[in-house]
């Protein structure tokens, strides 16, 4: 008797069509009882962007030294905040009763047709300033890192909630046949809330961010065991597939077929993931523009890999880079941090544009909060800035976002928003909107409640779009 042989490996070369599931396979036991319905996997609105590259700056970059030019600070250098702002005391670490105003030690000049001010620490950003929309007035509620991270990445200040990437892949599925829909890379970062920032939360596990690791094995267990040739591995996987199919034929259980498909994708990933990380195919000009040393893990390399992932149809790529938590010695630490990211961010936007990918790809640059306009004086004598949650700057590019546009403004001391405050939920609603998802309709029932990325808040800021 012959095995009912399915020509398993013949199919490996074929595309899998338009299956819109994050792993191409469904869970063997979807939480049907808690989910109101299956995943929407379709946009509610006209989508502007299809993919997201989210550059998350861990620790809270100093907007006043990078994007939000406040010349007036120089006038009040060393003085306490004026009477009208004395009540402001939402500090994380500053214990001083009257901390002193600390103007940016760096000079700003105008860039691009939009003529916006950019700090000398971000010379490359000057090159893309006409491609991006800067929001100067993002507001958050948490002054402590782990909670601020989670609020920014999941919409809730506590553990156990799905991240934005999980919501987006839940909402839109994937178009990649070789990769998970949601991929995470980290460089230099010290993420305080760790995996909670890219967790699936209560969504099914197939929506979790899959971290790519540095080194030769970007995904755990990607390499064959020592001594197992690729032909050997193929033989084992094929035997598994055939015996599974035999069982599946006897029992008529589709879960067994899903298991076999997972093995197919795993086997493909064993070659596609190393190919992804192999940057030899990139031109020297491209490598130089990002400032990538292909052999060394870095934020720049991750930016280039992010582009390659988007090319392969990966829905949501999130980069975490840190540490931007400059409570002290900002004078020497911040220029280093800026140097680590400035060139690659600019190169990424330009590269995406040249390849015609920028229209479909929303690039987000943000941290969990900004930093104060007053100095945090360290015992050692060095000076830094404390966490600031009332108004700080982020930028967006591509994905239908209005380029060269500035949204919101802060007071002359950079403390509060004077117009168009955008809280974290507004930002989330707006990002979902760019992807064609209505934040009020992208829901998942858990413990009797229909949860959203935006909780019960969020206003789409349509002004940000063309």
């Amino acid at each position, binding site marked *: 008797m012959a095995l009912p042989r399915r020509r398993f490996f013949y199919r490996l070369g074929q595309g899998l069509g338009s299956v819109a599931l994050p792993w191409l396979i469904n869970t063997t*036991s979807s939480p049907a009882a808690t989910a109101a319905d299956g995943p929407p996997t379709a946009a509610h609105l006209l989508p502007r962007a299809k993919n997201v590259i989210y550059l998350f700056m861990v620790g809270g970059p100093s907007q006043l030294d990078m994007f939000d030019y406040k010349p007036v600070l120089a006038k009040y250098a060393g003085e306490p905040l004026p009477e009208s702002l004395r009540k402001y005391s939402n500090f994380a670490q500053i214990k001083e009763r009257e901390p002193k105003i600390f103007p940016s030690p760096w000079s700003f000049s105008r860039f691009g047709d939009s003529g916006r001010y950019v700090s000398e620490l971000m010379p490359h950003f000057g090159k893309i300033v006409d491609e991006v929309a800067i929001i100067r007035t993002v507001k958050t509620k948490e002054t402590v890192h782990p909670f601020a991270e989670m609020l920014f990445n999941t919409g809730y200040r506590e553990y156990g909630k799905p991240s934005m990437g999980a919501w987006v892949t839940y909402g839109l599925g994937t178009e990649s046949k070789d990769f998970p829909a949601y991929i995470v890379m980290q460089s230099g970062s*010290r993420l305080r809330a760790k*995996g909670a920032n890219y967790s699936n939360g209560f969504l099914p596990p197939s929506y979790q961010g899959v971290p790519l690791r540095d080194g030769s094995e970007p995904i755990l267990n990607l390499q064959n065991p020592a001594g197992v040739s690729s032909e050997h591995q193929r*033989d*084992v*996987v094929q035997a598994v597939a055939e015996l599974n199919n035999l069982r599946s034929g006897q029992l*008529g*259980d589709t879960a067994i077929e899903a298991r076999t498909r997972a093995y197919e994708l795993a086997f493909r990933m064993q070659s596609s993931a190393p190919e992804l990380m192999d940057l030899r195919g990139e031109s020297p000009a491209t490598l130089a523009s990002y400032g990538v040393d292909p052999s060394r893990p870095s934020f720049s390399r991750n930016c280039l890999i992010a582009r390659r992932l988007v090319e392969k149809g990966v829905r949501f790529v999130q980069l975490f880079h840190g540490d931007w938590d400059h409570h002290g010695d900002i004078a020497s630490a911040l220029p280093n941090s800026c140097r680590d990211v400035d060139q690659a961010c600019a190169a990424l936007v330009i590269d995406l544009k040249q390849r015609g990918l920028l229209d479909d790809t929303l690039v987000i640059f943000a941290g969990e909060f900004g930093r104060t306009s007053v100095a945090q004086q360290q015992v050692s004598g060095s000076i830094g800035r404390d966490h600031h949650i009332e108004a700080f700057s982020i930028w967006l590019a591509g994905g239908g976002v209005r380029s060269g546009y500035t949204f919101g403004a802060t007071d002359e001391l950079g403390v509060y928003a004077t117009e168009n405050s955008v809280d974290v939920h507004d930002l989330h609603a707006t990002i979902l909107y760019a992807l064609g998802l209505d934040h009020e309709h992208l829901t998942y029932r858990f413990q009797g*409640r229909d949860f959203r990325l935006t909780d019960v808040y969020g206003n789409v800021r349509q002004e940000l779009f063309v």
Partner: protein
Amino acid sequence: MQRFLFRLATIAIGLLFAQPPAVAASSSDDPWWSFQQPLRPAKPKVSGVDWPRNPIDRFVLARLEQAGFQPAPPADHVTLIRRASFDLTGLPPSLSRVDALLADRSPDAYERLIDELLASPHFGERWGRHWLDVARYADSTGGEMDLARPVWHYRDWVIDAFNSNLPFDKFIVWQVAGDLLPDATKEQQIATGFYRCGVFDPLIGNGANEIARLESLVDRVNTTGTAFLGLTLACAQCHDHKYDPISTEEYYQLFAFFNDTDDVHLGLPTKADFERQKANRELIKVLQNELEEYKTKSAGKVRRWELNLSQAEHDGLPKEVQKALEVGVEIRSPENAAVVAVAFFAQDTGHQTRREAIRRLESEAPKSEPAPVMAQSAVQRATHVYDSGDFHSAGEVVAPDFPEALGLDFPNPEGQPLNRLDLAHWLVDPQNPLTARVIVNRVWQHYFGRGLVPTENDFGQRGTLPTHPELLDWIAVEFVESGWDWKALHRLILTSATYQQSSRPRAELSDIDPHNTMLARQARLRLEAEIIRDVSLAAAGLLNRKLGGPTVFPYQPSGVLDSRATKVEWIESEGADRYRRGMYTHQWRLTPHPFYRTFDAPEALTSCTRRYRSNTPLQALTLLNDPSFVEAAVALADRVLSEQHEDDKRLELVFRLGLTRTPSPVETQRLSELLRVRRAEFRQHPQRATKLLQAWKSSPAMPEQAQELAAWTATCRAVMNLDEFITRE
């Protein structure tokens, strides 16, 4: 009083008609079904009189017959023993036990098997781990710092409690308020570790310890709601519950039960330990004095040694000593004299023997790791209602009390304020409408993949209605009336015909009942993360079946613990500790072992009442390539090669050790082909065999043997990657 009369009336009516409470409230004035006390319904009449083995089956069959269907045929004995062994112990059955069952023609063969499995110490591990999911158990605090928190004493208590069949009401009472019981025993105090398992983040609230404490109480109230009541109390922390009749005030009344509690550590060494420790200390003191005396008396010996040093011995001494010896004894400085003395004692057996004796005693001192527990606080803290859950805006003061909607008259003795012990007793009061139902439903869920109330974490008005309300209530009442007999509850379910059905999907029902809500068959369920590890080790013959104790550190890929705020090292366990059951692997909450997350082990951030059973390529990569699984495959191959001598017999053994059943001829043929081709490969490339076997402790010396072992390893890997290997059918 009025409420009491009302209840009396309801009970009377209930008794009169012997009907279960209406499932959907017929009018909006009726309390929600799950807020009404369950009454034991009459067993329904069925036409199929041969099928039912116990009352459970009557309810199930009645529903099936109503829909015009029959139950599935029973599973064969091989499937049954594998199913029951996984469900009750999380381990595959031994082959001899399988053979014994197959040979046993007595009518109670299966029942005796169940009794045996219930008596196994691994029962406590299996069901203990289920409970630890609910207890959000992990071995560190979580939060940014993720500090070590050795709470495994509590884990061991849970295992013991299930093994000794502690009545479940006591199991609950001890966890909620064991410390408040009169003359609380060590075990009763350790049980309160349940509330010490949650995330604790000292950095929360900008370093204000009070905020961190209040946050941990929120976790305790929410966990109480999930674990015992199946209610989403958390919703009421910030505003009155939108769907269930729980007000914010009532939330903080529950909160108040925990507010007068302190987090303390219980030192655990027993009295005997202390006595031995004390004796050791005294002995060490005596020996140390003796050693000092010996050293003082040895001045002459040092001199003789120095004078009798040969040139070679002298040159072999450290430079520093040689220099000290250059100065004559009479004019030698005390420092140099000390250097010489140290050099002498380093080679003096009399000194070494004495040192060694002291060292041995010191290392014998019991290493006590105190257990985190709760204790009643000396200070009384006022509990406020916090507006919108914001701890900075304290509202009115509330006292401990129970939610009104559960309609449970609970005696408030002489106007004394209620305390945690009252809460514990209230939870297990026979009139409490929720606790028994919630527990019974979760047990059911583990046996059928789905609860009778499918939303096992929400018995409130947004939850799904029970598929078999009478059955749920019948079991819940039976459970309470049995004296919360934990093992009897399991026996009841496992000996039902419903449980013993085949899990094969039924084509005729796939459209009508895709989720098998009618229980027209059993379920095929992927095994949990820990159990997947356990079955691999068990098949390979590597499993160390030791129960309990401190956590262990089996192989973990490098890099997992990088970038933590608190640096910790993963020092791999040695010897048999590398092969302990999965549930003993150390879990750093913030940076868990990737294997367990890959297979859906909970993050332990909140109470988990149901795990996902996902299916991802990362799982495939793990089973194919993870060094632990490769090692197990080599071990299984090694075992099979030593236990059998013909290919077919060996293949059969691989199959039986991995899947319990014997292979079909087609399966044998396919695996033989794999074996044949791999043999040829390894013969041609012997170095590949050598490399593969590096995963194993002892590679055969003869190249032919190594090649054979490598080829069998390939075969074992194939079997260990089959869907069936990680599935309970």
